[in-house]
């Protein structure tokens, strides 16, 4: 078995430099997905090195930047849940973080990892869509609704590193995840909804976490029944090990109705 090198940069500048210049390099943060795949040897292409950004101080913390809250890409879900700023300004993000795995995973999982992994079932991703979050990288800002480009693919360039996620303030977002049990569940569906402006973001119902655009148009008119009808057409669920397309469609409609009544 080929040895995978371990690289630990001292600061963000060194991380950016190493990521650009090291062939076959993958980023490692909390490892909750990557280490499973590394051990099972299912990472493609097979990495030659892991660049550990977990401890970089520039990627930690929750801070107020003008009229936004910025969360470091390698900040843990536990720190996000404990942050008074998040609890006050982004309660739906705290709610989503609390549904991820259990203590062991919340202590290691990160927003940067959830984004880069780009799983359609990523629990925080609909919340980011509902808040119109901005993905901040080492070179630019990417609007979240252009970030997911296909099944587990993103707008990131191959040597581009997520440094933070920026959330505009002043929006009310409701969140709900439906899984097999309260902890350690991968969602059957996961949803975040903002009434004004209308944002309906759903995970585990398509190849990407998606915005239900037709349902949003109806909700913008205040037409909840129309939104509930339209969302079934906006999503593209499949049958898989966790659920069926029919169940996901029905539950998406029910959860949308529930969240618009909050």
């Amino acid at each position, binding site marked *: 078995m080929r*040895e995978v090198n371990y690289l630990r940069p001292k600061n963000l500048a060194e991380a950016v430099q190493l990521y650009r210049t090291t062939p076959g390099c993958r980023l490692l943060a909390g490892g909750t997905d990557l280490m*499973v795949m590394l051990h099972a040897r299912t990472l493609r292409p097979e990495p030659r090195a892991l660049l550990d950004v977990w401890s970089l101080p520039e990627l930690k913390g929750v801070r107020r930047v003008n009229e936004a809250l910025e969360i470091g890409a390698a900040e843990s879900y536990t720190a996000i849940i404990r942050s008074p700023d998040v609890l006050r300004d982004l309660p739906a993000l705290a709610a989503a973080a609390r549904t991820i795995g259990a203590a062991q995973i919340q202590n290691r999982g990160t927003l940067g990892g959830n984004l880069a992994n780009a799983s359609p079932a990523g629990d925080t991703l609909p919340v980011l869509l509902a808040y119109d979050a901005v993905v901040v990288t080492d070179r630019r800002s990417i609007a979240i609704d252009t970030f997911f480009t296909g099944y587990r693919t993103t707008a990131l360039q191959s040597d581009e590193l997520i440094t933070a996620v920026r959330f505009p303030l002043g929006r009310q977002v409701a969140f709900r995840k439906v899984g097999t049990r309260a902890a350690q569940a991968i969602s059957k569906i996961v949803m975040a909804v903002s009434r004004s402006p209308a944002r309906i973001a759903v995970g585990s119902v398509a190849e990407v976490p998606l915005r239900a655009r037709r349902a949003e148009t109806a909700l913008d008119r205040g037409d909840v029944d129309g939104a509930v009808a339209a969302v079934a057409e906006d999503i593209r669920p499949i049958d898989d090990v966790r659920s069926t397309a029919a169940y996901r469609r029905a539950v998406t409609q029910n959860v949308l109705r529930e969240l618009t009544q909050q």
Partner: protein
Amino acid sequence: MRFTLNGTAISLDVVGTRRLLDVLREDLHLTGTKEGCGEGECGACSVLIDGEVADSCLIAVGQVEGRAVTTVEGLADGGRLTALQQAFIEHGAAQCGICTPGMLLAAHVLLQQAQRLSAADVREGLAGNLCRCTGYTKIIDAVLACAK
């Protein structure tokens, strides 16, 4: 690389991308830490890193450089069991024993962090630790016996 293991500073020459779990068991012969699923689902490999519980199957050993790692072997003070370990014995909170080290570490953190604990708090706090014998009730009783 250097880190603190169960209160003792150690120095190791290992590939940093190896799993902490494997280095603990194979190189350091600390076999109290168990491998269950190897996917971060079951919590059998739980250890404490700077006092926070984590699955050692998901951690590259290089990531604990400079940090303090506690395994189940580090809970007891010499031969003296902690109150929690004693309570596990008294309540029959171990059956096959595979989940026990992880349960003890997760419960240890829970008892340190919470002022008061209800059965629901314990269930939530131990949600990342699966017992394949399904002996949860006695585990929760043992933790509650140590809570205020």
